[in-house]
């Protein structure tokens, strides 16, 4: 029932609306297209807050110094609808972030692509697409 997963038709609508970007604010205002980056690190905290979720990531630099990065992601509500809960990305997880650094020079970035070390995408699962929300059931 619900919404149909109609990629082709939908994508048409997509273009018709001219929208690669849909968000709470302007990504280009906050992040710098000239500062692409790739970070590998350990998750210390996952802030499941709106309008954007933030992953806190300890990243070890070439000099061995650890910097805490904050990586911006999408609204958590949509993740809840896909069945994810706060346990989906526990502290200690090793992830790889491809994205763009903040314009003001602080250790923040938008996480354009988030993967585990083995290349598997974060938050994507086959069951995620069908709209079930297992996380909302008791236990």
């Amino acid at each position, binding site marked *: 029932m619900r919404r149909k997963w109609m990629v082709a038709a939908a994508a*048409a609508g997509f273009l018709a609306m001219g929208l690669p970007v849909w968000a709470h604010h302007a990504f280009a205002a906050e992040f710098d297209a000239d500062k692409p980056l790739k970070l590998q690190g350990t998750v210390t905290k996952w802030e499941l807050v709106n309008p954007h979720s933030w992953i806190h990531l300890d990243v070890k630099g070439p000099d061995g110094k650890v910097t805490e990065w904050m990586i911006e992601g999408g609204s958590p509500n949509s993740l809840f609808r896909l069945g994810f809960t706060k346990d989906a990305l526990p502290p200690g997880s090793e992830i790889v972030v491809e994205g763009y650094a903040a314009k003001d020079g602080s250790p923040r970035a938008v996480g354009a692509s988030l993967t585990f070390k083995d290349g598997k995408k974060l938050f994507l699962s086959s069951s995620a697409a069908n709209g079930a929300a297992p996380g909302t059931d008791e236990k």
Partner: protein
Amino acid sequence: MRQHPFRTLVCAAMGCAVIFLLSAPAIGQTPGSVTKTAAAAKVSENKAWTAPHLPDGTPDLQGVWSNATNIPLEKPRQAAPARPGAYTNRQANGDLVLHYDNAQFGLDRSRNVVAEDTREYLVTTPDGHIPALVPEAQKRIAERAAFTRDHQWDGPETRPLGEQCIMWPNEGPPMLSEGYNSNLQIAQGPGYVAIMQEMIHDVRIIPTDGRPHIASDIRQWFGNSTGHWEGNTLVVDTTNFTDKVAFQRASENLHVIERITRVADDKIQYEFTVEDPHTWAEPWGAKIFWEKESTPIYEYACHEGNYGMRNNLSARRAMERKAEEAAKKEAK
């Protein structure tokens, strides 16, 4: 990115989806009459179905609903382009889009297709377009746009309402798809209907006891709504908007009439008519179908986690400092 001159600046800040959807028509278009039109929506109708009612006899609209759709509000100005492939956040050259992966976060709007609604656009005017702006509105909008161009990065007040976490641009009334988390929940008490929208956790509590609108000097973001039942349809009349209201750049004189009817167990038909002689030459309206949503509404506490506002302003200030330093160097 294709951009209409009016929308350029707002697009820069908000992303362009809704802006494009709701964009003003080119001047000189013949506006249609609202009453004469009814764009065919091929939503299957079960003749045997009867609308559910509450024990007190009022129609039961309760539940969590999704008004997500990516049918454009207006008839597209250009022929739709060839259908592209599945969603990707890589550009043709393999570079990332400056954005997180929408599919990853469940924000891929390609899912926002209401079953069986095959209409090309949502408005109910005969030509599929929003009526032309009156000269007064053109002037007002141009002035606002000029102000925004010069001051959009000055401080929080000149950022878009959505970025301020005050209200999402499509929350209305009238209520249109938000792009993501386009969910709302209806709860009914005796003598009133509450409509909660997930975005910014905004609630409209609409009295249906025949009371008049509140004093006209009380102006609100969501205006002031009063309702009544016509058969199985909840009719909501809204006035008392602020002059900062976002819907289609209308003025504070915006008057919205919404008609909400349950047409199946899992479907609501939502129609609206808007009028504002200070903005459009004629009233106009649209029709949208809402589908039952299986999950509850989750808290969208926007302001509390609004790092974006701080970061945007701070990025801008950093850029300005950089430009200043560069200019100084140049001068030496």
